């Protein structure tokens, strides 16, 4: 009979191999789906995975992959700290929105002043906005023991409604002919997060990689990282070791909130340009998936975010050039996630084929 056995030690090689296997299986299953829809499967798969990176216009798509991946990396890095410690912030989408609102509000308040100090101020404001939104579930958990998964999720909807309210009211562009949405802050050099727009480089990408390096050092070279790991794997042992759970909760939710808030600002001040209804397109939720696909490891997160970005950009390309419906792309992404998640199993467990025995 076939059964699962827990490995004495999680496999070290499999985490590297399983994602590759998952991608290959997805290509086969996805190819079958595209064939059913009457498209050439080989061409579809090539368009999604190959063309953005090595195709004719790769010079444009390669930096765009980073633009798309940067907010995912920034948010997922923050989330991974908490997830390792067993602190589940799933409201990053709300923190992302709040950071975008507070950061953009600072930028808009200075309009039309020009100064190199405005943008750093906006980044700080965004980090505070995201941090504050993340501190609500943290504080409630510490003070009342409420479940942070649920509180942070509820706060996403509150933030979304605040966003609509801002786009229609307080932050509405006075010269916008009555349409909802703020002024475009990306076109003004002192409030823009673009470093070089044509090359697709903005501060969010820079910060994402700084965050990766810091997270790596924190997790593997610092006592705090050790405490985080310990709390997640053995909460009781952590308490005996003198880890203060309250401080850990405040730290993890605060950091992930601040990073998500900053991601929101870099997006609104760059690629998106304005505060408007529906500005958030789900980065906060996708980042949760990215954090897990990346095995909560800083480098893994970068790779997972790039893979997600690739399916988004390649998916749009396949829509435009092959006429695949966007729904097919969504299903394809869903399949990829399922296979990645399912194959995760092999990291911690192995399939043992045992001789049949009578019990």
């Amino acid at each position, binding site marked *: 009979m076939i059964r699962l056995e827990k490995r004495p030690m999680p496999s070290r090689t499999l985490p590297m191999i399983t994602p590759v296997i998952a991608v290959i299986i997805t290509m086969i299953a996805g190819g079958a789906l595209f064939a059913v829809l009457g498209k050439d499967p080989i061409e579809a798969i090539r368009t999604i995975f190959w063309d953005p990176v090595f195709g004719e*216009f790769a*010079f*444009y798509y390669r*930096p*765009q992959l980073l*633009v*798309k991946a940067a907010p995912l990396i920034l948010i997922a890095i923050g989330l991974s700290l908490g997830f390792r410690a067993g602190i589940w912030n799933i409201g990053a989408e709300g923190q992302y929105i709040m950071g975008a609102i507070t950061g953009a509000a600072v930028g808009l308040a200075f309009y039309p002043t020009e100064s190199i100090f405005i943008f750093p101020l906006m980044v700080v404001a965004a980090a505070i906005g995201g941090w504050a939104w993340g501190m609500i579930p943290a504080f409630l958990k510490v003070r009342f023991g409420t479940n942070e998964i649920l509180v942070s999720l509820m706060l996403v909807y509150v933030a979304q409604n605040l966003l*609509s309210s801002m786009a*229609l*009211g307080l932050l509405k562009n006075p010269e916008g*002919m*009555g*349409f*909802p*949405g703020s002024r*475009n802050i990306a*076109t003004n050099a002192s409030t823009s997060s673009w470093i*070089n727009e*044509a*090359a*697709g*480089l903005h501060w969010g990408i820079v910060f994402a990689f700084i965050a990766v390096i810091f997270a790596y050092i924190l997790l593997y070279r610092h006592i705090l990282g050790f405490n985080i790991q310990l709390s997640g794997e053995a909460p009781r042992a952590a308490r005996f070791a003198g880890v203060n759970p309250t401080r850990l909760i405040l730290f993890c939710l605060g950091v992930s909130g601040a990073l998500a808030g900053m991601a929101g600002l870099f*997006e609104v001040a*760059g*690629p*998106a*340009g*304005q505060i*408007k*209804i*529906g*500005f958030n*397109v789900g980065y906060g939720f996708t980042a949760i998936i990215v954090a897990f696909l990346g095995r909560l490891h800083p480098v893994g997160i970068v790779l997972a975010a790039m893979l997600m970005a690739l399916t*988004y*950009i390649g998916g*749009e*390309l396949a*829509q*435009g*050039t092959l*006429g695949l*419906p*966007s*729904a097919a792309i969504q299903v394809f992404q869903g399949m990829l996630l399922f296979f990645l998640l399912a194959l995760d199993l092999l990291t911690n467990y192995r399939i043992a084929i045992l001789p049949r025995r009578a019990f």
Partner: protein
Amino acid sequence: MKLTKILTGATLALGLATTAMAQDKTKVGFVYVGPVGDGGWTYEHNKGRLAVEEAFGDKVETTFVENVPEGADAERVITQMALQGADLIFTTSFGYMDPTINVAAKFPDVKFEHATGYKQADNVSIYSARFYEGRAVQGHIAGQMTKTNTIGYIASFPIPEVIRGINSAYIHAKEVNPDVEFKIIWAYTWFDPAKEADAATALIEQGADVILQHTDSTAPQAAAQTAGNVVTFGQASDMSEYAPFPRVSSIIDDWAPYYIARTQAVMDGTWESVSTWDGIGAGMVGIGEFSDAIPADVAASAMALKESLADGSYHAFTGPLNKQDGSAWLAEGETAADYGDGGLAGMNFYLEGIEGSIPQ
């Protein structure tokens, strides 16, 4: 030094990419905000795209990307279309305005057409429809068909286009029925069937027996049908599956003539940046067939109103008209200007007689 070189190289490459493309077929791209199966706004734009394919056959190749969010992703999708060699790109939602302008600056040889916006450029035309002309016809019919003198209006977002529609419907209903009253619900969505159904039900329960909608789903039609004696009008598409009753007529977005004309212009090399704001006359706003549920005399006068709007002998906003606060807006015989102070493009006030306030 090296970095700047690479960056400049990328910028140049963007601009040059399209000029190298071979020109056999005219390539036309469409960017949609919703799915083509939304049965409303995007559905009608896609019908326009199919009409272009039908009109030009082999000489044209169309592509589209649906469900494109109105933010960062829009700019990438538009760029992608330009890179793939599109000659003409229609961006069919207001939120694509800044992305369209940005991409257009990088691709001076590609022609862009942005729907419902207000920013024009040398290679960016803007186009929109005078839906308020259709609203005038609706108001005219609605005012005479209501027995409770209460007309329900499901509005989407407080933007000039929606406010123009409410004002236009109101003054033309008032003209034929001085006792008419409007109940307005702001749904804060273009498309949410469940919410639209609830909104229609709420209006009906409060005595409305005519429902006008500026949201795109057929849910209000179904709610009216359930209620039994409530009149509705199709929005964006004909919604003829609810004819002859409750749906007695409709406003149809008909983009096909415009899309065909603009594609033709690109083929002929006569394309120029224009600002188009067409109504019933040019066929951009279609009035769905009047059903038999409309009394013959009402149908006849509504048809006459439609004709006078079409040939330009009558403007839907003709003075004397006052704003809600009683201050004068248009003098006797004066017609509303499109732009400028108090112009239609930026309309942000109710007209006299409408109750309530526009949410801010």
